[in-house]
């Protein structure tokens, strides 16, 4: 008997045209070659041409890029003359300005602490809840999903109205430091953190893998550490990154609950030095952009792995 008996192997696979997907060529149109070794199948015969796709990409790219480039250009601008300078960047490091910019650094520190706690909430509360629901109470999945998605359906301004009395109690118990905002932001971040973890759970047959590991002698701790978490890693990473971006973008809660975070500090500093506020805003945007790119690359890698299977 051949060792390879039993069907195809990945080793025998080679780059070549992608097989047509059933149901995706309703128009019966021909496959369109789009690159070496690959074939793009028009979806329902309505796939845009290369030119159309390029135009759409350029227009959308401009919509996003123009404000960012303008913001970047603004950070280098010297007064109203239009000349460019690095003075605004060097001013940040100047000890003479330390008192002026201190609220920004304080706010940044507070936001990072909030991000850490919010991520901890995701990892220690949401993740176990989703895993336990998937393993033991699959019928509750819809309920958990509903609970986690609800915050995105309610405007933050409305949520704040509910949070204000709650935070009177929170302040009595934990004080009124900025980090206490992480409880509220943890709720705001739920919809964003829930989805990638749910997708990762759906992508693996968690119950069967757990049972297989248990039948091989693994304890529940080993099952979690050695089997479940490695397979959920990408979803967990995406959930954490999205939580961080939510924290760094959240202004309304901090403002209405009178906490100083990165965003509220920027507004404060902007009144005295708009250039420095713009520099930090740009930095926050770039950071968020990098996180999203990393998430995208993780997703693309996973898709690639699945396709290679």
């Amino acid at each position, binding site marked *: 008997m051949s060792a390879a*008996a*039993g069907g195809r192997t990945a080793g025998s696979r080679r780059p070549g045209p992608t097989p047509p997907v059933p149901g995706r060529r309703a128009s019966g149109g021909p496959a369109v070659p789009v690159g070496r070794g690959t074939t793009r199948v028009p979806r329902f015969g309505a796939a845009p041409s290369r030119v159309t796709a390029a135009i759409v990409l350029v227009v959308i790219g401009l919509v996003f890029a123009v404000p960012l480039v303008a913001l970047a250009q603004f950070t280098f601008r010297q007064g109203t003359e239009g000349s460019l300078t690095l003075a605004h960047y060097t001013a940040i490091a100047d000890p003479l300005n330390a008192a002026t910019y201190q609220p920004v650094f304080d706010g940044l520190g507070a936001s990072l602490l909030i991000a850490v706690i919010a991520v901890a909430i995701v990892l220690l509360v949401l993740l176990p809840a989703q895993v336990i629901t998937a393993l033991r109470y699959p019928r509750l999945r819809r309920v958990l999903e509903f609970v986690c998605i609800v915050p995105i359906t309610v405007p933050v301004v409305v949520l704040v109205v509910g949070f204000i009395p709650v935070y009177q109690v929170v302040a009595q118990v934990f004080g009124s430091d900025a980090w206490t905002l992480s409880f509220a932001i943890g709720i705001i971040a739920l919809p964003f953190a829930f989805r990638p973890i749910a997708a990762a759970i759906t992508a693996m047959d968690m119950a069967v893998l757990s049972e297989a590991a*248990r039948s091989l002698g693994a304890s529940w701790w080993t099952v979690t550490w050695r089997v479940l978490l490695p397979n959920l890693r990408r979803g967990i990473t995406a959930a954490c990154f999205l939580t961080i971006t939510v924290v760094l973008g959240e202004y309304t809660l901090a403002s209405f609950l009178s906490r100083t975070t990165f965003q509220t500090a920027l507004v404060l500093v902007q009144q005295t030095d708009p250039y420095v506020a713009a520099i930090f805003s740009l930095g926050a945007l770039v950071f968020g952009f990098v996180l999203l790119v990393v998430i995208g690359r993780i997703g693309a890698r996973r898709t690639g792995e699945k396709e290679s299977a």
Partner: protein
Amino acid sequence: MTVTAPAAPTSLSSTGATVELEAVEKHYGAHRALAGLSLRVEPGEFVSLLGPSGCGKTTALRALAGLEAIDAGSIRIDGADVASTPVNKRDIGMVFQQYSLFPHMTVRQNVAFGLEMRRVPAAARRERVIDALDMVHLADFADRYPHQLSGGQQQRVALARALVTRPRVLLLDEPLSALDAKVRVSLRDEIRRIQSDLGITTVFVTHDQEEALAVSDRIAVMNAGDIEQIGTPEELYRSPSSAFTADFVGQSNRLRGDLRGGDVFVYGFRVPALDAAAADGPVIAFVRPEDVAFAAEGVTGTVVASSFLGSIRRTTVRLDDDTVVTVQHEVGDRRVAGDAVAVRLLGAPVAVAPLT
């Protein structure tokens, strides 16, 4: 081509254990999945649990594995009650219906997992992993990931992973159902070969009677949470003790007849009833297609269809009273739709059920 199967590596040799389930009950809410199931599997025996969907066969296997808690009864392995022993302490190997290899681990790491859990030293672990992969002819695939293997290869790795720890009992939960027909037959035979070589007590769950008939020492036909009949494949096929078994195992013609004094009279033919104690009166007789033959004289009818099945042919005949009968006959005897024919019963004993 003749293929010589390698003998089981000594590092994997196993001594089969006795498995006993006694009056096991399991409920899911109001539904009774196991209704006092009792079963004894001898050391080294290959027993299949066969039955239709929802009959409780997978529940029984999962209860034996420790993946389902039972409500009543006892489960013993080599005499020790394991009903309250957690699954990771039961020392069983299990292959699942779904592909259950850990996707982030290579084949080698997957197979080594159970040995790591048992803290087998690294050197011995390496040797036993290679032995196990040799056994399923996949040693060359040790460094691949599951997604780089076909379905059949994944299930063979899962088998190696289940056996590498030298478990006392091997449990197979429809491991072939996700595979295509050719791979299924090949892997089925391979499982049987490996099981025989290792002498490991094996319980195999399937709804595919052909699979069960082909590989089992004994088959337990399950119905409504209990065992309807248990016996060798031949016993079940030739001497079904109930209408359910006769109907479920193999193909049967359901013909009306009259039971009188232990014999059934069907279309004027007298055939002995398997259940001699059955009450006289109108019955349904379960007659195998090979126990019906074309004849010059007999019950007349018209051929509806004829199927070529390789070494035999099966022809469906609609009798004059509209009863449909399947006849198994030689390939050379070709019948076509519309042919007027006559059939007769050959007189082999038949299972009967009271006509309700």
